[in-house]
């Protein structure tokens, strides 16, 4: 055992961990959070719109628009993330100025995440008891008030747990974006583990990713439970 800790391999790994891992963790976390936030800004209203936009919903959307949104979301959701990165590269170049690097990885991440979030939000909103919506209508609520004062507040626990799912999925995607030079733990794993055969570094980054997912998931679950007033006894 002591031989292992004296080996050059271990010393190199230790060196890499000390110099590169803190930055990589930071990049992973902030790219994940920023991407989720932007994706949420698009996906939340879109998901709500899909949920209330049914033919007999509270804000019926014109059928062509409804179909278009559904097809768009299904289309984006069916493209594998690694392919999506390449496909949207021209768009990324327009928005960020370049198609690779940490900032550039946010564009495909958002494009992959917002349709996913929209579907999750749609599900959360649809879970709200339709009788409560009827109550709001009978009380004289406008469609906008029903959305802001009934549908969204009533589905907060479900929204939090769904956004947590999105967050951990996006965390996984950020690791993949290491392939195009997106910073973070993914890049570390690919650069050292795959290109330079430093398996130890790869194992450590994988463990760190697992820990990050655990932390996000625990916080999300906790928040969801705490926010749910139905569970108060």
């Amino acid at each position, binding site marked *: 055992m002591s031989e292992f800790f004296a080996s050059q391999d271990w010393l190199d790994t230790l060196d890499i961990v000390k110099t590169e891992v803190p930055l990589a963790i930071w990049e992973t976390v902030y790219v994940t959070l920023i991407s989720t936030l932007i994706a949420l800004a698009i996906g939340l209203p879109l998901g709500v719109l899909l949920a209330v936009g049914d033919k007999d919903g509270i804000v019926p959307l014109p059928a062509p628009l409804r179909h278009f949104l559904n097809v768009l979301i299904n289309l984006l959701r069916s493209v594998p993330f690694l392919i999506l990165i390449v496909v949207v590269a021209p768009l990324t170049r327009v928005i960020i100025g370049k198609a690779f690097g940490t900032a550039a990885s946010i564009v495909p991440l958002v494009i992959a995440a917002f349709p996913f979030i929209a579907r999750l939000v749609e599900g959360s909103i649809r879970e709200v*008891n339709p*009788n*409560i919506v*009827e*109550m*709001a*209508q*009978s*009380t*004289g*609520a*406008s469609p906008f*008030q029903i959305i802001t*004062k*009934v549908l969204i*507040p*009533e589905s*907060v*626990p479900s929204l939090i747990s769904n956004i947590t799912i999105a967050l951990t999925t996006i965390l996984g995607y950020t690791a993949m974006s290491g392939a195009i030079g997106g910073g973070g733990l993914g890049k570390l794993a690919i650069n050292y583990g795959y290109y330079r055969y430093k398996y130890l570094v790869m194992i450590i980054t994988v463990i760190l990713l697992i820990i990050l997912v655990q932390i996000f998931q625990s916080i999300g679950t906790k928040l969801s439970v705490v*926010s*749910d*007033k*139905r*569970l*108060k*006894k």
Partner: protein
Amino acid sequence: MIELRNLTKTFHTADTTVEALKNVSITVGDGDIFGIIGMSGAGKSTLVRCINMLERPDSGEVLIDGVDVGKLKNKELRNTRREVTMIFQGFNLLMQRTCLKNVMFPLELEGVKKADAKKRALELLEIVGLPDKANAYPAQLSGGQQQRVAIARALATDPKVLLCDEATSALDPKTSHAILDLIREINEKTGITVIIITHQMSVIEEVCSNVAILDHGEVAEQGRVVDIFTHPQSKAAKRLVFPEGEQEILVENADYRLRVIFGGAKAAGTPLIAQLAREKGIEANILGASTKAVGDKAYGNMLLSFADEASKDQAVEFLRTVNDISVEEVEV
């Protein structure tokens, strides 16, 4: 005053059409507690939802104080809905809000200042008997308490009309009784018009002064509860008033029957059958009997059979001399 005129509503599904309402006309006076009763599927819920246009009738009019609600623009309709509020079988409270915030909800929609809304909500919680539950969440309350919060919420906008859609059906008899008491109390204090939808005759007997009986989408009968209870005319009404099916009691050999209906204390306190036997020498056989409280009076009915027509006729003569009693011949 609420006038429903010739309301018709048909639901179309893939392979069936259901006529939920057929030419329904009902008038409800101001300050009345009006019951609409019918079996499941009679069209009650559709009817009550037509009053505030949650459900649009295919034809017919809903006039509230002379205003045709069906012709109102969205915004006007929303204002009308604040004057015609509703409570539900499932209470329909916002589960993520405290009771206080639930009662404040309609005021919030109207844009009432928060401090004023809170003051009003606290008053209302006091009225419904839950002043200490302001900061509790609905999940922490019993069904009866949740319905009280829902009533407070329904009263927040000072409505003219309260619609109760099977409001006590999910509650046990004792709680149901307490909720109906509260509704009557509020009606007496504020003069609010109450429309109660139910499938239980007991609810109608307990609080309603007028009733319409809905049967397969049609009004089978309507009028004062006392009249309908004592002299049901339609088949649907008889089924509700005599749920035990007293009508159908079978006796092998043909006999002569009378239904004796008594209302009020005098009749209830008279030993009729004994008098009949002692004074007239007529023997009556009791086939069935029941008493019920309608409003604050006791009403009852009794089905008697006699051996021959002569004794039946004599019995009619005698019974008609007693106050608060009416007699009806029943075809065998």
